[in-house]
């Protein structure tokens, strides 16, 4: 099993203990609060993904052939999902991120947060993560 799927399955396992939405969201809120906020000076317009509901900031760094993400959001629930997305993708090789199929959101019952109509910045964030994967992959192979 790929590393990205192993990480996703871990999250699915964690969420399986919650039997109602309130527990799921409370956990998400905790994750959102625990995620280190990006310092204000790092939240530049260049890394801002603007949704009309909430905003997401996503920065990336390539170290030893692997991509490391840092991200933040102004909404806590969005930030909780951001934390999960980072947990799944950060520290992986560009190609793995590029090709990752992110199924865990669906499986943990947070699908509505990732629908294109939500405009909370998350759909664009996933796209952006994959773009970084593609960009770094191209860079490393040239």
């Amino acid at each position, binding site marked *: 099993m790929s590393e990205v799927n192993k990480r996703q399955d871990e999250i699915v396992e964690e969420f399986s203990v919650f039997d109602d939405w309130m527990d799921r969201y409370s956990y998400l*809120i905790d994750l959102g609060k625990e995620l280190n906020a990006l310092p204000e000076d790092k939240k530049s317009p260049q890394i801002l993904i603007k949704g009309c509901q909430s905003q997401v900031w996503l920065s990336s760094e390539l170290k030893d052939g692997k991509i490391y993400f840092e991200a933040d959001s102004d909404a806590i629930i969005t930030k909780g999902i951001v934390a999960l997305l980072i947990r799944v993708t950060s520290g992986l090789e560009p190609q793995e991120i590029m090709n990752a199929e992110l199924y865990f959101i669906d499986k943990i019952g947070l699908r509505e947060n990732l629908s294109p109509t939500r405009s909370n910045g998350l759909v664009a964030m996933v796209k952006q993560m994959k773009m970084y994967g593609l960009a770094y992959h191209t860079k490393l192979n040239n």
Partner: protein
Amino acid sequence: MQAKYLDKIIVTFVLELNKELITSEMSIDIQKIRSDFPILAEKIYNKPLVYFDNAATTQKPQVVLDKLIEVYTKYNSNIHRGVHFMSNKATVETEEARNVVQKFINANQSCEIIFARGATEGINLIAQSFGEKYIFENDEIIVSEMEHHSNLVPWQMMAQKKKAKVIKWEFTDAGELELDTLKNLITSKTKIIAVNHVSNSLGTINPVKEIIEIAHQHNIKVLIDGAQAVQHIKTDVQDMDCDFYVFSGHKIYGPTGIGVVYGKEHLLEEMPPYQGGGEMIENVSFEETTFNKLPFKFEAGTPNYADTIALAAAIKYISEIGIDNIAAYESELLHYGEGKLKNIPGLKFIGTAKNKTSVISFNIDGLHSYDVGMILDKMGIAVRTGTHCTEPVMIHYGITGTVRASFAFYNTKEEIDKLYDGLLKVVEMFA
């Protein structure tokens, strides 16, 4: 022990009596009304739906749904110029709908009523057509700071085309437009003022009659965006003397995709058509086209007759209940809601105008509107969050969005209690 029991009975009796008194004061039958709207019986996540997103769109009473089915099952046929029975019937119903709208907003003539896709298309129509004829380089268009993007962007586009300027009319922190501020903005270059009757994000009812009076003293035309007004308060275009008035069908319990543009006849006569095509022509040759008379000049293509006819059914429905009764009941909901919600710790109202419709915009200290809306949704409570297509309003207050609960006459105080309880839960969850 017995005396205590008796006390309880008396208290219960008095409470019931009060309830009855309150109910009898209200001149609308809420249970009957709720049963007119089938969607209100829906469950969301297995909880009864509490629909507080009425400023975005309203639900449809059965009579409107029935009317749509009637059109499509009994006499669906392209209107005007048809020689056969069904075309004639559909035409008569459509033109009757125009008369219903005319009476509803008290326009002088039915040819002053133009059907469009919605308020947005209506404003685009006026901005393009009026602008084409009357706006020139360096002219000024005054637009209030509390407009929906639909009443700002079309003017920006027109201004850009004609090298004219859009002038911002700022509102006060309470969310009110001041007439003195307007007077200072008016110049000899001002051609038109575009302002809403009621603000969608703040609920402010603007003093449109006074605005129009001031404008007309300077020979300036006025467009009123009535998308948030006609379903809540009595609208009389002749009394307010506006030059143009627009509203949307779906916000007044009618179908989506239909809207109304009112314009004074002599202005509409002088203005060029907005779009070309069928219906709007009189004669066409390759050398020359002459345009149809009002209102058809502005209705290019096959009109949306089915939704037009159903819109008339919606207007008839609320007219029977009575717009004044609706206004009174909704005002009661507003005051009840404000009285209740102000007890939520850290809650701040955005928009505290003296004169408001049943819209409550708010934020809770330390909470993002999206987070609040997400959790309320899980409880079956539908509110809107974000900028409400009024980014300049958010910029004014230095915020990124609000939570907006907007009530309609089918909502109840019990539902507001659910919102209150829901918000307490939200505060607890994020604490």
